[in-house]
Each structure stands twice: as structure tokens, then as C-alpha cells.
């Protein structure tokens, strides 16, 4: 279900860039989304990996839910035609190849969805070791897209 919706959003976005508004706005929204996810990722990293003695079940569960919410929000809509160039909060690092690699991107993006949703599920149990393992998988799924379509600075 989620896979289908992500794919649909990507296709709609590519068919009609106007759906998500001007280029700069799309870039700004997606940068904000990843930035918000980064804050939540840092909480889990800190409380589960770096300093497990500070683990707070509610805080980590809330963070995992936030990451899943970002993943499920249909980010594909923010990748309209022409959004490989432009300034949101800063210059976008989207590779122009993004638009030729739609299928690979869809696979990588879905991997993030699946991993993030699973993390939310695992976080609800409060099992630190299980959260740690799944958190690593989320990191791998982030890297999947970064390696594929993000410009090296």
C-alpha cells in the first residue's frame, strides 16, 4: 500500500511539477523534512547507541514515530521537474540523474519507508538492542538514496 502510494506520488510529481508549488518551495520543504528527521535520528543515536544509560523509552518512541511520519509523508511530491537546481534553505544537492533514475530511486525510497516504519514498531517495545539493530538499518536506507542521487560536496 505504502509502496504504491510513494510510486504514485513520484509519478504524479514528475508528470506535473506544479503540484507541489514553485521549485524553491519544494526544495525548502524537503530540506526541512530531512532536517527534522535528523534531529529525531540524533536523539535515537544518543539514547540508544552513544549513551544507552540516558535511554528514555517515550522520547525514543516519539522520535521513531516522527521519522516514520517524515518517511510516510509522500516526500516524492517535493521532487518535481527542475528541482535539481535551486536554493531552498541552501543550494540543493539533488543530482540531475535523479530524473533518469526514477525506478532505482523508488526502490531506495521505499526501503527507507519500510525501515522507518519498522523502527517505529520496534521503538514502541522499548527493547534497546532491537531498536539499535533497526536503527542501523534505517541508516543504511538513508545512505541508499544519498549514494544514488545526492551530490558530493
Amino acid at each position, binding site marked *: 500500500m505504502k509502496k504504491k502510494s510513494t510510486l504514485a506520488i513520484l509519478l504524479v510529481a514528475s508528470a506535473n511539477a506544479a503540484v507541489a508549488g514553485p521549485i524553491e518551495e519544494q526544495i525548502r520543504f524537503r530540506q526541512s523534512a530531512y532536517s527534522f528527521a535528523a534531529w529525531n535520528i540524533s536523539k535515537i543515536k544518543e539514547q540508544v547507541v552513544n549513551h544507552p544509560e540516558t535511554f528514555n523509552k517515550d522520547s525514543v518512541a516519539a522520535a521513531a514515530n516522527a521519522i516514520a511520519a517524515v518517511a510516510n509523508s509522500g516526500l516524492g511530491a517535493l521532487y518535481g521537474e527542475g528541482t535539481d537546481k535551486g536554493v531552498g534553505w541552501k543550494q540543493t544537492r539533488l543530482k540531475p540523474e535523479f530524473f533518469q533514475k526514477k525506478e532505482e530511486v523508488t526502490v531506495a525510497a521505499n526501503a527507507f519507508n519500510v525501515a522507518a516504519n519498522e523502527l517505529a514498531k520496534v521503538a514502541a517495545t522499548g527493547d534497546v538492542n532491537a531498536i539499535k539493530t533497526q*536503527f*542501523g538499518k534505517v541508516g*543504511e536506507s538513508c*545512505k541508499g538514496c544519498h549514494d544514488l542521487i545526492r551530490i558530493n560536496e
Partner: protein
Amino acid sequence: MKITIHIWDLPHRLFHWLLAASVTASYITAKIGGALIDWHGRLGLFILGLLVFRIVWGFIGSTHSRFVTFFPTFSRLVAYLKGRWQGIGHNPLGGLSVIALLATLAVQVGTGLFANDDIAFEGPLFDFVDKSFSDQLTGWHNTVFDFLLALVVLHLVAIIFYRGVKKTNLVVPMLTGKKKIPIALAEAVATDHDKGFGPLRLILSLIISSTVVWGVSGGISQLYPVQSQQQIAQAAPSSF
């Protein structure tokens, strides 16, 4: 007539093989990412320690480990290319390769200390720079790697070339520390090639390298605390 001499001392050989193993491992962990990125960071710190050790050892190690013995000066390079160079350890081109590898690794480790992966990893000195500068250094970290890879390939090709064309095995001496050379050559060049290094020098080198690693991996942050993301990340859940 040939004689066997001690050319690479044990710390030098250990350095070499540990470096080869840890650089390989850090490449693999970076490629896989995820939870392994933390091991990439630890390996980077270990490589830092190895590099500092090698630099110190380049001054106080045994003869053929010292920079003065093999540093590729212009006159040595010219002599070598004209076929007039005589020596036992690194030849000037080999010396150039050693210096290039060490310098590149130093840049690689140096940038890595400040890097971040925009996922869940920050180098141990990340908090000392702006995020945007860290991003820039991360970019260099990625780019310099390609250069490092090229140097490593050149290093391996040279070893195969020496084996196949020049009929010289460079790998065995790096394992055993011993090398067979013609007596005439041994008499023609420096006579102190069998000189050892003594435990004090080894201990001093280890102290210096482990102090540097301790410093960047947390010591500096303890002495000079900076605002870090840790405070935000550790904050108790908010009521709204």
C-alpha cells in the same frame, strides 16, 4: 655472494600490516554504512594512531624506517632515474610513494575527524566546526579517497612489477624483516643498517601516538567543552 640483513624492524612491519588491514576495513565499513559507520569512526582513530606512530618512528626508528634514509630529495630522484642510485631500503621512487601515501592518509584522517554523514554519524571533532564546513570537509573526505585508492593501486602494481620484471620480492621482507643483498652493496652503502631501536624509543612512540588519539577522541572535548548536539539529543521528552 649475498648476505641477509635486517631491514624492516618489527614495529615498522606491524605498522604496515595493521595499516593495510584497517584501511581496508574502514573502506568496507564506510561502503556498508548503517551501524558500521561507528566502526568506520573507530578505525579512523586507530589509523590516526598508526600515522602518528609512523611519523615519530620516521625520526627515532631503526635506519630504514627513518625519513632521512629514504626521503625522496630531488638529487636522489635524479640519481635514481639516471640509474646511479645505490641503496637497500626504499628507493627514491618508493620513498615518494611512501610519503604520498602517508600524506594522503593524513588528509583523509584529518578531514574525517570533522566529517558527518548527514545520517547518524559525526567525527569526534565535529562540534568544533560549523555544519557547513563539516559538510565541505566531508566532501573532501570522499574525493581524497579516490586519490588514496589510486595510490594504493599504484603501490600494488609496483609490487607485482618488482616481482615479475625485476625478480625482487618486496612482500617477504615486509613479513620477515629480512632481505638478502649482495655483499658488495652492503659494503658500499651505510654500515649501520642492522642497528636496532631499543624499547625506550618504542614506548615513547606509543605514548605520543596514543596521547594524540586520546586527545581527538574525547580528551580535547573534556578540556575545552563546546556546545554539542548531545545536549539537544539527550533532552527529556517535552510536555508539548
